């Protein structure tokens, strides 16, 4: 089975739609900047990859995650020719790491009005799109690709013809602050797979795709999803396990009928943390073996920051354009790769040009929740 992507939408610190995002990533534009919505006197760390949409600098407002999500879904629905005023009956699967917890923080700190039913996204999606089959999956940093996996199951089982899959996250101050406690030197940027990486910085964004069993005649198809494998390390609440990651990669490739040598592009999870990048590199080297030097690889978190639940689907939206155009954004800030990744063909410096047919997308989250997708160009 393959499932066609007929619509895409995206918003991140470095682009407000899929086209702008891809162009900026290929140009090596980073969305990093000084914190815009927190009280700086409370934090040692200074940087993040935020979407600049607050009404005034330094003041935060509730429901920013919801607004980004609505934006991305509307883009994708329009692109696919769906009636965005009435998405009733269309399953909408949302992956998120932190849902509307930033609004809970503002309620706790400032007494900002925030009713419990706004904690999940269904309430806003019913109001915006008349959507009545919405599902908020809070699956940490692999939530977006987990939601994609469930969408393929719905299409495969014949219970839906069309599914919208979306991912979203904005910074929460608690997650940002607690990361400061485990990263002794506050990073100034995300440097995936670099020997001198200091850790992860959070980013903001949303992405959405419309996935369908049989696209209408004449409808543009951005690419096809071949498989999504999901599992759990059952190992540690924050640390990854290379074994669980490798299993997810093998399962995704097998389900798509592809071997490591068939993969032209790997969109790595690449968070820039000491633990993730090492575990991911070890798993990739293990699965790809002697073919580990064949696929191009890149880590867009070097320019978007870690957008958590949105990251897997931002990767997907970027991948579809990369496959269509034969162009791969670079990993900025990667100067001196770690030993585990030394044999990989990670794109650095300029964007790379190459004919591309098959891509693999990695996403891993706290608690060892792994998701790996195989995606192919529309032909």
């Amino acid at each position, binding site marked *: 089975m393959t499932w066609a992507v007929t619509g895409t939408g995206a918003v991140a610190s470095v682009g407000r739609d899929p086209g702008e995002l891809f162009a900026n990533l290929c140009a090596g534009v980073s969305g990093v900047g000084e914190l815009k919505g927190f009280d700086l006197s409370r934090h040692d760390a200074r940087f993040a990859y935020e979407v600049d949409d607050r009404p005034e600098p330094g003041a935060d407002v509730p429901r920013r995650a919801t607004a980004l999500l609505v934006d991305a879904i509307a883009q994708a629905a329009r692109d696919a020719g769906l009636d965005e005023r009435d998405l009733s009956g269309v399953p909408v699967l949302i992956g998120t790491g932190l849902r509307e917890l930033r609004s809970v923080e503002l309620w706790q700190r400032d007494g900002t009005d925030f009713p419990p039913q706004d904690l999940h996204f269904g309430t806003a999606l019913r109001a915006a799109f008349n959507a009545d089959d919405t599902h908020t999956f809070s699956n940490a940093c692999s939530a977006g690709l987990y939601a994609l996996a469930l969408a393929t199951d*719905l299409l495969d089982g014949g219970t839906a013809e069309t599914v919208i899959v979306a991912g979203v996250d904005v910074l929460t101050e608690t997650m940002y602050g*607690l990361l400061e406690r485990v990263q002794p030197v506050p990073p100034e940027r995300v440097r995936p797979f670099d020997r001198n990486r200091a850790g992860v910085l959070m980013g903001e964004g949303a992405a959405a795709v419309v996935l369908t069993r049989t696209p209408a005649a004449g409808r543009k198809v951005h690419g096809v999803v071949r498989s999504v494998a999901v599992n*759990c390390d059952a190992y540690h609440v924050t640390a990854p396990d290379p074994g669980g990651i490798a299993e997810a990669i093998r399962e995704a490739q097998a389900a798509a009928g592809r071997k490591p040598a068939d993969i032209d592009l790997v969109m790595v999870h690449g968070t820039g943390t000491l633990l993730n990048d090492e575990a991911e590199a070890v798993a990739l080297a293990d699965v790809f073996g002697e073919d580990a030097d064949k696929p191009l690889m890149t880590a867009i978190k070097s320019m978007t920051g870690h957008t958590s639940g949105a990251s897997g689907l931002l990767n997907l939206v970027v991948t579809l354009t990369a496959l269509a155009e034969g162009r791969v954004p670079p990993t900025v800030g990667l100067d001196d790769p770690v030993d585990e990744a030394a044999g990989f063909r990670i794109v650095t410096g300029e964007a790379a040009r190459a004919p591309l047919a098959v891509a693999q997308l990695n996403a891993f989250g706290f608690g060892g929740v792994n998701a790996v997708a195989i995606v192919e160009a529309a032909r």
Partner: protein
Amino acid sequence: MNVVVTGTGVVLPRAASAGELIEPGPADAPPVEPKDLLGRKGLRYKDRATQLAYCAARAALRDAALVDTAGALAVAPLSVAVVVSSNYGNIDTITRAMDTITRETAAAGSPMDLPNASSNVVASSVAIRFGLRGPNLMLCNGATSGIDALRWGAGLIRAGRVARALVLGVEPDNEAVRAFLGGARTVDGSAAVVLEDAAAAAERGAPALAVLGDAVRGAGLAASLGRLSDAAGERPALWQVPETDDLPGALLDGVPRQDLGARFGLASGALGVLQCAAAVGWFARGGAGPVYASAGGDADDASAGLVLLRPAA
């Protein structure tokens, strides 16, 4: 493919089994103490939702004979998915950590709070404690979340990803949650069920306690009930009602109603799973089927429904 329930675990102040959801203990029962049920080992730094979930998960896995009393898993770890539903699970961690940042600075925060700041901590912690390596899902989906979790658990089985899924709902009661809910008291407990491919259950000799029928969604309770009725093809023997202030009396007129939220406290994301466990208790006491479970009313973004059937004798 038939999906059946092969185990239940119920951990509420007034009910420690599916049967006690039908015949509960006294209304002034004390809160559940996870350390009394599990021992202290592994509970440190775990939030209340996770601790309650551990209790219900262990009970359900034992009831389904998937783990023995020593905790050893009787099936392949990759064959078991975990699907957890909770809306308020980590509100306590978020508000406490935010308060620390406001009153002091981020440097005063505890690194042990880091995993609990991610809303999926309950699902992943249950997987880690019991070694369950299949797909691991956390739903935070509002009033319908528990029934949605059952739907996704069954979906993972029907898609062939796993043979069985531990589906669990939990809502803790604490000061932070009460403040967030304007004073409402949640169930302060957890319910879990094991869903299983009927063939896989039969193969290992696990009896079916209930059969999962179709799951539906709709904008509004009447629409959802209409779809449930179409799916079931017959009037229910019992209607498990949603948590809503304005339940129309005319709906399913004459059908006995079961209001678990009114009896045990605001169940929210745990409601659907509690309803499934209560249906098992109902069938075990000779209750007829089908049972309709409903979560989410007209004031919510949607209403979800599920048909639960009495297993063949």
